[in-house]
Structure formats: structure tokens, C-alpha cells
């Protein structure tokens, strides 16, 4: 019987903040019904030139990158054998499961002919050249894998419910024998689909701004930045949990993650700038247009963590680690927003900004995820147990 993890069940669930999240979720639900009854056009500002708006770009592309905490930690703990980060895994898995689950749901909401979605799973209907197919199948599979990876937590909760102990233990026993395979899948699958999310940009061709159109290395830059965002989100959420629930800070663990982040960002920037130099696009960086402006804002957000975390003192400071992590999350998110939307140009005469209902539905998705996350950590043994309260 493992008492390393605990549910925060001494805390009330229905706090004002939680109720606020539910209220926002409810507003989103209203627009959701309208979307399905009257069509996407009533709630969204999509057009012929901009068929993908924030539902695809935030909910799916950015949202799954923000949900790469499980991926990042799985690689660290299970490939590189850094066991000390193990306690961070369950909360990260909860976030990943929610993030990817809602990304899949968001995909359904965005799909214009969602009732035909099963065609993606029919072998004779699959177009194996299609990046979208890869993303769809891979994300769907990964959600299942995350659920399996999270099931030890659920089984631990289950065994404490009256009359379920034996069944839960039996299932847990069988699961433990096979878990390594699913963990391995949980490393392979995000590598595949996060890189594919970057590959979307290749077929878009000239529509993607030259500073973001890296053609053959789109998958590399995409997976690299997503992987980095996975580490950053762990620090971000961990910090919020520490202050929000008055828990012990995990600064020394985050410090290690911070060093990993530094290495990854360095690799990202080197590869990106090298590509732009080789492809002769350095001039575009100084074009004094929207593209160059966004490029430098992005680069600054990528570089800030390097500047901050270079100092060993700051690397041991919770506040600096948090700011560095948030900067990285903003950088990675902005990288995706820029490539798909902000500096994206399908031709003269087209423009896009989300409509209010469209944006509220995205915000409502986030609110729902937060609410569910709070529910999960309060009802399930996700967070590491703490004997002494923090000073």
C-alpha cells in the first residue's frame, strides 16, 4: 500500500475560483450548442483564406504542446533514468490527459463533418501521405495511452472504495507488468504527432511567413519546442500548486528541469537561426514589418530563460524559475500562433481575428480543464504526500 501520494481531500472543492471556472465553462457550453445547431459560421470568424482559427491553433496545436509535461518527464525519468523527478509525474500526467483529451474534443468541435470522423480509422479510407491523418490517429491513441498511464492513480483511489480493494489490486498487478510498454508508447507517440503538428506548415507553402517556413525541419523545430514546453509547464503548474495550496516548494527539482530547458532552447535557437541563415532569410528578420516584429518578440521570449537561468543563484530561485518557465511557454505558444495565424498570409484581402463566441469557447475549454484538474487533485492521489506544512 503506497502512501507516497495523497488526494487533497481536506480542501473544499467548490471554492469561489472553482465556481468561476464552472461559470465560464457554462457560457462556453451555450455557444457549443449554438455551434452544433446553426453551424460554425454563427460563432466563428473563419473564412476561405483562414479555415483554421484559434480552435485549431490554440486548442489543438498550442494546447497539446502545453500538455507535454507527461511526455517530457517520461523521457527524463524512464529513458534517462532520472528517478528524482518521479514525484512530478502524476500531476503532469493529469495535465496531459486533460490537455490532450480536450484537444481531441476541440478537434471534434472544429470538424465540419464530425459524424464522418470514423473514416480516419478505416484502413481503406486512410491517405497515408496526410499529416492530418497522422495527427488524428496518433493523438487519439495517445489519449488512450495517457489514460492507461494515469490508471495507477485511479486504481489507488479505487482500492480505497468499499469492496473494491481486491479487484483494484488485481488489476494493478496486471497493469504493472505491462506499464513499461505504454510508457514507451507515451514517449513515441508525442514525438510523432508533435512533429507532425509542425509538418502541417509544409503544405501551406508560401502562406507561412518565410521566417517560420522551415519546410524540411518543421517537424524537428516543432517537437523540440513542444518537448521544452513540457518541462516548462511542469515548473509553471508546480509553482502554482506550491503557492495555491501552500505546499513545499520543489525548487531543487525545478532547477534541474531548468538546466534541461536551457539546453533545449539553445539547440532550438541554434537550429532555427542556422536554417534561416542557410536559406538566405536573415534579411527578413530586419524587414521592419509584422513578421520581423513578432520574430524578435518570440526570440526574446525564448532567450529570456537562457539569460535568467545562466546564473546558478537564479537557477535555485523559485521566482526566477517560474518566470523563465512562463517565458518559455509564451515563446512556444507564440511560435505556433505566429506560424499558423499572426504572420500567416493566404493572399490579399483575407483577414482573421476570432469572434467573441469563438474566443469564449476556447477560454471555456481552459476553464473546464482547470476545474477538472482541481477536481482530480482533490479527489485522486495525484500530488506527493507532505507530512509537514510549509513555513
Amino acid at each position, binding site marked *: 500500500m503506497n502512501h*507516497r501520494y495523497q488526494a487533497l481531500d481536506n480542501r473544499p472543492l467548490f471554492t469561489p475560483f472553482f465556481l468561476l471556472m464552472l461559470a465560464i465553462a457554462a457560457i462556453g457550453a451555450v455557444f457549443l450548442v449554438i455551434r452544433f445547431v446553426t453551424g460554425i459560421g454563427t460563432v466563428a*470568424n473563419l*473564412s*476561405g*483564406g483562414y479555415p483554421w482559427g484559434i480552435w485549431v491553433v490554440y486548442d489543438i496545436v498550442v494546447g497539446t504542446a502545453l500538455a507535454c509535461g507527461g511526455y517530457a518527464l517520461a523521457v527524463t*525519468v524512464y529513458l534517462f*533514468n532520472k*528517478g*528524482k523527478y*518521479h*514525484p512530478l509525474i502524476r500531476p503532469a500526467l493529469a495535465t496531459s490527459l486533460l490537455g490532450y483529451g480536450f484537444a481531441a474534443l476541440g478537434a471534434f468541435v472544429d470538424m465540419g463533418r464530425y459524424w464522418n470522423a470514423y473514416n480516419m480509422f478505416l484502413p481503406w479510407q486512410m491517405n497515408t501521405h496526410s499529416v492530418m491523418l497522422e495527427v488524428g490517429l496518433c493523438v487519439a491513441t495517445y489519449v488512450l495511452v495517457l489514460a492507461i498511464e494515469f490508471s495507477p492513480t485511479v486504481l489507488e483511489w479505487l482500492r480505497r472504495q468499499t469492496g473494491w480493494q481486491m479487484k483494484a489490486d488485481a488489476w494493478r498487478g496486471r497493469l504493472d507488468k505491462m506499464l513499461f510498454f505504454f510508457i514507451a508508447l507515451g514517449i513515441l507517440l508525442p514525438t510523432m504527432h508533435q512533429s507532425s503538428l509542425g509538418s502541417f506548415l509544409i503544405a501551406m507553402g508560401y502562406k507561412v511567413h518565410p521566417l517560420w517556413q522551415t519546410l524540411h525541419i518543421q517537424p524537428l523545430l516543432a517537437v523540440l519546442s513542444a518537448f521544452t514546453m513540457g518541462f516548462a509547464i511542469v515548473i*509553471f503548474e508546480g*509553482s*502554482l500548486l*506550491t*503557492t*495555491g495550496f501552500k505546499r*513545499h*516548494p*520543489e*525548487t*531543487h*527539482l525545478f532547477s534541474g528541469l531548468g538546466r534541461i530547458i536551457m539546453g533545449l532552447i539553445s539547440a532550438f535557437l541554434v537550429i532555427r537561426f542556422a536554417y534561416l541563415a542557410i536559406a538566405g532569410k536573415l534579411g527578413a528578420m530586419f524587414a521592419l514589418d509584422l513578421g520581423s516584429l513578432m520574430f524578435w518578440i518570440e526570440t526574446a521570449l525564448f532567450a529570456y530563460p537562457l539569460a535568467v537561468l545562466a546564473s546558478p543563484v537564479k537557477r*535555485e*530561485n*523559485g*521566482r526566477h524559475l*517560474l*518566470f523563465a518557465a*512562463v517565458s518559455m511557454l509564451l515563446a512556444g505558444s507564440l511560435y505556433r500562433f505566429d506560424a499558423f495565424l499572426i504572420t500567416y498570409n493566404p*493572399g*490579399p*484581402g*483575407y*483577414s*482573421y*481575428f*476570432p*469572434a*467573441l*463566441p*469563438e*474566443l*469564449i469557447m476556447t*477560454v471555456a475549454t481552459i476553464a473546464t480543464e482547470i476545474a477538472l484538474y482541481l477536481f482530480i487533485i482533490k479527489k485522486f492521489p495525484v500530488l*506527493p504526500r*507532505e*507530512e*509537514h506544512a*510549509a*513555513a
Partner: protein
Amino acid sequence: MTRKPDVAIDDPTDFSAVERRLGVSRRTFLKFCTGIAASFGLGTQAAMAMAKAIASPMRPPVIWLHGQECTGPTESLLRSEQPSFEHLILDLISLDYHQTLDAGAGHRVEEIKREAMKKHHGKYLLVIEGAIPTAQNGIFCKIGGQTMMDATREAAEGAAAIVAFGSCASWGGVQSASPNPTGATGAPQFLQGKTVVTIPGCPPNPANFLGTVLYFVTYGKLPPIDDKGRPKWAYGRLIHENCYRRPHFDAGRFATQFGDEGHRQGWCLYKLGCKGPETYNNCPSLEYNNIGGNVWPIGVGHPCFGCSEQGTGFNKPMFSLAEVKTHTPPNAFPNIADRQEPASSTVAAAAAVAGAVVGVLLGATAATGKKLDGKQETSQSGDKGA
């Protein structure tokens, strides 16, 4: 050049003399003047001015020359009906020389012409009907032993105004069709340097001639003309711009063969070679023969061949496609960068919400950071080992 009437009328509204002379009621007479004024785009004041001019006994002398022609313009003038048109025109002007209408014949008539030109030197209106052949010193058209070239030059000397009536006089007409062996030219091209009003058409609409003459008689000057000498009031628009079949053109409904379904439905004749899109004239508005009922070439189902337009009539093949010279409303086009869906009006509100969300994120980060600074590091969150 302006001229006032030599004799004033005692009662300006008494048209009894005119009514008797023309055999029409006052009402019909004034209706006629109003109609002509309306063709110019002018109002009732102009109509009254024209009525007074007609009532005035002043009748400018007119010398009417005929060159290479079929007399179509004159004949079309004579076919007009409301009211007794030939009486009107002949009462309005003193037609001192007209080869068709003159009662006399032979050398005596030629003498009368020269006497009239000498007597009214600088005051007569010269009307030219028919083309002027210029090849081989103009031997291809001679009247009384004199070439048309010489006759025209001679008559143009003392003319107060020159009107070329019909396509032949305006630009050469059928004679000038390739290879133009007689060197047929129109009066403006022949009389270089002189202002020549042209009333092209084959035949021209007599109302265009009448209206121009009436304007001259009323105001003592010619109406505004374009660079080819055509009165703008009559020749300022393409037939395509006023054609009653234009909606069919705009909607893509074309007759493709005489007698086919489209032809019987009265669809656009563009595919059959209608030159309306490149011909300037007012046929769709005035029609012909004064009987209404859509009696004009396109109205009776035959494509226009551009009889009044130099370069089109007697030059382009009858059934070849016309060049569409202009696109007036409602045939409007979207620009290359025009797109179908406008952005929603809730964008401003969305921008505000987006800003708020980012603000909340940054605020939470800052607040959390501050709190973290106050926390002590412990060794509690432990390493459980692999």
C-alpha cells in the same frame, strides 16, 4: 456665332400662324417641341425657345450637297411623320438647293445654287449627304460636270455651319469599305480645319438631324459635339448602354442561331455579332419610323452592324464578335482581392477578452513569483528512487 431673330413676335405664346402652317393643334406642336428638347436633356424653357424659333419667320438658307450616296438620309427624313415632318423642316429652313427635292433640274439649278451661295455668303447652312471620292482627282462623282470635291470645297467657303448627314458624309460609309477604290472620304476628313457636325447612321435617325438643326435655329450655335463631330446628346452613349436586351447580356443569355430558342425569347444578340457594344448611337431610345413597338434592328431580332461607327460599319464582318468598349452599371465586377466573408463585428470584444486572459496569466505569474520568493526550500518533496 450667335444670331437673334430679325423679326420679333408680338405675342410670344400665339402659335396660331404655326398651327395653320403645319396643320397641327397647338397642343401637338408644343408636345413635339417638348419632346425634342427632352432628347437634348433640356427642359420646358428650351422647349418654349424652340417653339418660338419655329414660329419665327426667320428661315436660314440651306445648301444641300449630295455625293456618293443612296439618298437614304433624305429619304429617312421624309419618312418622318409627327407632325408633317417634311413640312416642318421645309418651313424651318429655306432649302435653296437640294438635288432630290428641287422641282427644277439641269444647269439652271446649279446656277441658282451659286447665286444663293453668293447672296447668303457666310450665313447659309451647308448640309452634305454622301461621301466625297478623292481618287484620281475626284472623277468618280460629278454633278453638272463639277467634281464633288470641288463642289464641297466651294460650298464650304461661305457656310456658317456644316453638317455631314449620314455615315457616308460623316466618314465615308459603304463606299469607303476596303479596298476603297474611289478614295471615298467623309466631309470632316476632306474639309480639314473646318468644324463639321456629323450625324452618322445608315440611314441616320432623322430626329438626330432635326434636333441639331432646331438647336442651331433656336440658339444660333451648334450643340456640344465630340471629337468626331457627333452631337453628344445623340451619340454620347454606346447602343450597349441603353439596349433593352442588356439584362440578357449581363446574365449570359445569348441567341446563338437565328430562329433558335434564345432568339425567339429575345435574348442578347452578342454572339450573333451584334456591334452594339462598340457603336455610339441612340437607336435604342429613339427607334425608327416613329411607330414605336421596338422597331429598330435589334428590336426586330437582327444584330446591329455598327452602321454609324467608323471602323465597325462596312469594315468588321457582320457576324464577328464586337469589342465591348465599356462596362457601365449594373455590370460591376469584384476586384481581385475582394473576398466573400466580412469579419464579425464582435472582434473588438474578442480582442478585449484575449487581452484580459493574457493579463490574468501574467498577473497570476507575478503573484505566484512573489509568493515563491517568500518560501523556504525544504527537502520534503523527495526523491523516491526508480
